C-alpha cells in the first residue's frame, strides 16, 4: 500500500523517478537505505532526548563545585580527569597506531607473513572485552610495574585498547591515497620517509581523525577497564601517578548503589557536552592540518 502511494507521488515529481520505475530493485534499495538512516537517527535522537530529559533538570550549580563531596557529587574533578586521561592515552596510542599503519602499508611487502600476524593480533586486541583489559592492567601496570592505581596505569591500559582502532582506520586511510601521489613524489626525487610524511600522511588525515574520534568516544565512555587501573578516587590527583576517576566511571559509581541516580544522569549530560566539544575541536584541528 505505502509503496504504491509513494511511487505515485514520485512520478509526478521528477525525471529520475522514471528510472526507478524501470528498475524497481534500485527503488527498493533506495527505500531500504532511507529507512535504515531514519531508524538510526530516530534511535539516536530518542536516546539523546532520554539522557537530556533525565539529566538536564538535575544540573545544579553545586554540581560544579571545585571539590567533590558526598553532598554535591561535583563533576569537576571527574571532568578534568577525563580530559587528562584522553590526552594521555592518545599521546601513547596515536604515534604507535600511525607508525604501525605506516609500516604495514608503506614498508611491509604485500602478502608478508609478518603483516598477517600483526593484522591478526590487532583484530584480537579489538575483540578483547574491556573487563579483561582491566584485569590485565591491574595485574601488569598496577601491581607488577608497581605504579599503583594511577592515571598513568589507566592511560596505558586504554592505549592498548584503542590501538587497533587507530591502526585500522589509519591503514584504510593510507591505502586510499592513490599510488600516483607516491610515484609523483619519488619522481621529484623525494626519499621514502619524506614522501610518507609530506605527501601520503597529510592526505590521509581525515581518515586518521575518524579513528581518533572513535577512540576518544571509547576512552570517555569506558568504565570496566579503568575501574581496576586508574581507580575511583573522586578528586583531581596531584600527578599522573595519582588515582582519579573519569566522568563515565564517576557516573557508574554514582549509579551503582542507586543513591545518586539524578546526579548520574546529570553527569551523563555533561559527558555528552564534552564529547560534542572534543569532536568539534578535532574537526577544527583537522581542517588546520589539511590546509597546512
Amino acid at each position, binding site marked *: 500500500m505505502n509503496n504504491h502511494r509513494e511511487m505515485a507521488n514520485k512520478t509526478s515529481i521528477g525525471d529520475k523517478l522514471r528510472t526507478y520505475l524501470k528498475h524497481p530493485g534500485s527503488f527498493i534499495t533506495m527505500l531500504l537505505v532511507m529507512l535504515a538512516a531514519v531508524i*538510526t537517527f530516530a534511535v539516536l535522537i530518542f536516546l539523546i532526548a532520554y539522557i537530556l530529559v533525565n539529566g538536564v533538570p538535575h544540573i545544579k550549580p553545586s554540581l560544579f563545585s571545585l571539590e567533590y563531596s558526598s553532598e554535591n557529587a561535583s563533576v569537576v574533578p571527574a571532568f578534568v580527569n577525563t580530559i587528562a586521561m584522553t590526552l594521555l592515552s592518545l599521546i601513547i596510542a596515536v604515534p604507535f597506531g600511525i*607508525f*604501525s599503519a605506516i609500516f604495514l602499508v608503506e614498508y611491509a611487502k604485500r602478502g608478508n607473513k609478518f603483516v598477517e600476524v600483526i593484522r591478526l593480533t590487532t583484530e584480537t586486541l579489538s575483540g578483547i572485552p574491556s573487563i579483561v583489559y582491566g584485569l590485565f592492567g591491574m595485574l601488569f601496570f598496577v601491581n607488577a610495574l608497581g605504579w599503583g592505581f594511577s592515571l598513568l596505569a589507566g592511560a596505558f591500559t586504554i592505549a592498548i585498547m584503542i590501538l587497533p582502532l587507530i591502526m585500522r582506520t589509519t591503514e*584504510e586511510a593510507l591505502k586510499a591515497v592513490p599510488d600516483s601521489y607516491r610515484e609523483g613524489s619519488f619522481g621529484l626525487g623525494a626519499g621514502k620517509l619524506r614522501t610518507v610524511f609530506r605527501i601520503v600522511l597529510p592526505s590521509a588525515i581525515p581518515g586518521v581523525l575518524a579513528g581518533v574520534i572513535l577512540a576518544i568516544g571509547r576512552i570517555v565512555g569506558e568504565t*570496566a577497564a579503568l575501574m581496576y587501573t586508574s581507580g575511583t578516587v573522586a578528586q583531581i590527583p596531584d600527578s599522573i601517578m595519582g588515582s582519579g576517576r573519569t566522568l563515565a566511571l564517576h557516573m557508574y559509581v554514582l549509579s551503582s548503589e542507586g543513591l545518586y541516580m539524578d546526579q*548520574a544522569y546529570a553527569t551523563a549530560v555533561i559527558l555528552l557536552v564534552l564529547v560534542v566539544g572534543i569532536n568539534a575541536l578535532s574537526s577544527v584541528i583537522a581542517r588546520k592540518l589539511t590546509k597546512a
Partner: protein
Amino acid sequence: MRSKAWTEKFMQGVFFVAACASILAVALICVFLFANGIPAMREIGFIKFLTGEIWRPNSEQFGILPMIVGSLYVTAGAIIFGVPIGILTSVFMAMYCPKQIYKPLKAATELLAGIPSVIYGFFGLVVVVPLIREFGTTLYKAGLVKSPGNGNSILTASLILGMMILPTIIGTTESAMRAVPAHYYEGSLALGATKERSIFRVIIPAAKSGVIAGIVLGIGRAIGETMAVIMIVGNQARLTGSILDGIRTLTGNIVIEMGYATGLHREALIATGVVLFVFILIINFSVALLKRGADHE
C-alpha cells in the same frame, strides 16, 4: 647523503617496532590470562568446564556452556540488527545525505560512540525491556510462544548491542566508501547503471576491506560489551531455547561475579576469560580465511 640513508633506516626501524607493539600487547595478555586460567580449567576438568550446563560456584559446579551459547546468541543478534542498518546508514551518509544536514548527522553518530555503556543499559532497562515484555506477553496470549519472558531477554540485549555497534560500523564503512575514487562511481553511472546499482555493485565491493574491518570491529565490540548487557539480559546461567528468555554471556559472568569471588571461583572466572579470548581468536581466524578466499576470487 649518508645521514639521510641512516634516517631512512632508523625510521623504518621505528615503524617496525611500533608495529610490534600490538604483538607484544597480545603476548602479555595471553601470558597473564593463560597462566591464571589454565590451572583452574585443569582442576575443574576441561570437558566438564566447557560442556557443563550448571554454574553454581558455591557448590563447586563450574559449567560454562550456557554462557558460551549466550554470547553466541547475543552477538549474532547484534549483528543481525546492527550490521545491515549500519551499512545502509553509511551508504546514506556517503551517497544520499543532503549537504545541509550532513554535519549534524555525522556529529550525532560520533556522539553515539561516546555515550557510556551504563547509559545504554539504563535506557534499555527503562525503555526497551518493558516494550519487549509487552511484545512477549502479546505473543504468549496469541499462543505463539511457550513463555512470555519478562523483558530482560536475548532479544533486548541484541537490540541494544545492535545500537551500540552502529557508530563503529558507520564510521569505518563510510570512510572506506568515501575513499573509493570518484571515477569508479562516475564510470558506472556513465555506463547507464542506476545510482543504487553503482553503489552496491561498484563502490561497496571496492570498499570491501574497510567494510569488513568495520564489521569485525563491531563484532568485537558486541562480544566484549558488558556493562550494558548485564543490565538487560537477565543473566540466568542456564540454557534456553527462546529469544524472549534471559541468558548469561561470558563477559557478564566475569563482571558480575569477579567482585566477590575468591579462590577457585575467581580462577574459574579468569578461565572464562580464556575461553572468551580463544573464541575471539577463532572468529578472527575465520574472518582472515574468508577474506583470503574472497581475495583469490
